[in-house]
């Protein structure tokens, strides 16, 4: 994985990335009006409160839109990865998140497809939340 972009956590995002490392999908929520938001930010865009809290999301959602990357850019980082899928996933908590869809053929992906988070430890410090088709329970 060397050379690929890795997140650089900041004061707003650190709880999210720390959560990923612990294999928990943490979403920021306004402590006053209760609106969930992603990406995390210091202020609620609905009620402008600065009081925030973190919830652990269910990890389930649906595919809102997706692309299939065939041509690798930068080439040296992604030549061995293509084709890969980037998606916007809509979580049950009502926010959308960019991610990868793994564990299924790109051609099998459909809008609205139920997916669930799967954590991938890409290094000792960084875990990325990717999604795979939900396994029917």
């Amino acid at each position, binding site marked *: 994985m060397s050379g690929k*972009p890795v997140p650089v956590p900041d004061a707003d995002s650190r709880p999210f990335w720390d959560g990923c490392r612990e294999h928990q999908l943490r979403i920021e929520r306004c402590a006053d009006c209760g609106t969930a938001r992603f990406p995390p930010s210091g202020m609620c865009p609905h009620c402008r409160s600065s009081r925030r809290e973190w919830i652990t999301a269910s990890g389930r959602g649906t595919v809102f839109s997706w692309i299939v990357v065939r*041509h690798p850019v930068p080439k040296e980082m992604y030549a061995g990865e293509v084709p890969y899928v980037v998606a916007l996933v809509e979580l049950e908590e009502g926010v959308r998140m960019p991610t990868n869809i793994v564990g299924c053929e790109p051609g099998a992906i459909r809008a609205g497809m139920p997916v669930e988070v799967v954590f991938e430890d890409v290094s000792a410090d960084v875990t990325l939340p990717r999604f795979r088709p939900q396994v029917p329970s």
Partner: protein
Amino acid sequence: MWTLQDKYAIAGIGHTKYSANSGATVLNLALEACRSAVADSGIQMDEIDGLVSYHFGDSVPSIAVATGLGLPAARYAVEFSSGGNAANLIVQTAAAAIEAGLARNVICFRAMNGRSGLRLGGGRDLNSRGVTQYTAPFGWITYPQAMAMWCRRHMIKYGTTSEQLGAVAVSCRRNAALNPRAMMREPITLADHQASRMIVEPFRLLDICLESDGACAVLVTSAERARDLRRKPVYILGAAYGGGPNQGDDLFDAIRWPEHAHNYAKYIATDLWGSAGVGPRDIDVAEIYDCFTYSVIMQLEGFGFCGEGEGGAFVQSGGIERDGEIPVNTHGGLLSEAYIHGLNHVVEAVEQLRGEAGPRQIAGARLALTTAGAMTCGSALVLRN
């Protein structure tokens, strides 16, 4: 809303050769295009006291161009840190600056070595601060990758097809064949589009615009001043800039955008047509920002040339051809003329309204639309002769 209907005009236009390798510095390209625009207008260079541009660190500051042109006073020399969505915004702010007394004659320019130098999207910090920390680590990095997500959403919601995208590419290339300054003039067919390799689904190679070296410039002055110059004035009738809610942290960030099957056009159309006092059916020629094929389809819908979700069928049935309901991108657009980041659309609209577009002239063109933007934010002008 824009209230300067017909008070300001484009009095001169200029451009360099558009190529894949200019062999010149960006500064030199800018100077050449600006000198051409000033000479075209007949205004004396010493009377130029404003310069406006936009770029993402791939161009030159306006003061450098003022210095290179030897302007005695650069009262309003500014630039926006922006993508092509500002291509029409700079014309609006040039007029607004003159209205406010900040300057009298303002050049709007865009200069870049977008192929041989810093390519668009290059030079970004992928390690991965701000909103990029939520995108780049998943391999979501380039502009084609960003905008493919929007295009897919249009396909999901309205059933738009790759063949319909292809109709935009084919039409632009057909127009470029009539344009001596276009970089790509060899005709293509829908089969060529369908056979071009998949870059990032749903985009094939021929859904993606060119990368170009070059510069262009337009000179904005008062309608009063424009009336007794060398060229027939092209008046700025209407104008708008902006987007919807949740435009995000930067041009790439559309995580919170409400619905990617629509872009900025839907949100600024009311202001645009309201400011101009005309509607889409009055427009004779439309130069629509075409960084990717899909963006033409979304803007046709957003600005009301067809209904929501009907853009695919509209382009497929010939609605945007030279003899269609609304001729679009008569120069070949970013897809086939050159990628001068949308300002080349304004140059083309002015030539059309002057009746100087040669073999690609739309007969009797009186009103032109120019647009700039593909995602959350954009700008547009209604120009008239």
